[in-house]
């Protein structure tokens, strides 16, 4: 998805993992995904650059649909569809 498309997305759940270090964002995402229904969109906020590479791989393993990320001044917004 393009940045504009991602920006227009309405997330059903947002996980704020800003400030935490590896593996914090991954653990936070795992904890939150349980509340998300199939077909819903989850957004993960992270200040850890590694998360940008980790979440797509996590999605692949967990069979979620990774939609893309937006970089906003060192904060990464990552989107996925369950």
């Amino acid at each position, binding site marked *: 998805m393009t940045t504009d498309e991602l920006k227009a997305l309405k997330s059903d759940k947002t996980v704020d993992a800003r400030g935490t270090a590896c593996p914090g964002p991954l*653990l936070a995402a795992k904890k939150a995904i349980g509340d998300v229904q199939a077909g819903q969109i989850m957004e993960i906020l992270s200040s850890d650059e590694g998360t940008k590479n980790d979440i797509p791989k996590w999605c692949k393993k*967990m069979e979620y649909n990774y939609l893309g990320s937006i970089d906003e001044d060192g904060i990464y917004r990552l989107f996925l569809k369950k």
Partner: protein
Amino acid sequence: MANEIEKQVAELAEKVKKLENRQAKDQISIIAYSGDLDKMLAAMIIATGARAMDTEVKIFFTFWATAMLRDKNKSAKGKDLMSKMFGFMLPRGTSQLKLSKLNICGMGTAMLKGLMKKKRVASLEEMLATAGELGVEINVCEMSMDLMGFKKEEMIDYPNLKYVGVGSYLADADESRIQLFI
């Protein structure tokens, strides 16, 4: 002819079944051996991360790493002199582990712990608690415990802790897709 084919199909089905049983599971086996703070941190990050990815995790604690599982608030009675000496010299739990490099009489370790706090990296204590919540299985080498004179009553309360031998580790590793020695 038809009989022959049927026989071959049956043989193949049998072979496939055997192969399927031999296939590694979505599981990781870690041998925690060193007991160094930095290396045990790496082990626990991998273990908790793996659980986030729905991978089963089994950690086999052996040799120096077993000291990490001691509870500093617990003690055991009836130890002989050698066990007492070992018990005194080895770390009593996660908080007493040292760095494998740049320890500098504990200064380096203290500095790293300070940095971890500042950068919000979870401490080893926190990671161990998280691992327990996430269902990371901990197996402790019975022989190491015996050798170093550690007793079960001085070990931490952990939800999935078992005392095992090398056979259990090998059986777990045999069915794990990933194996690490740390």
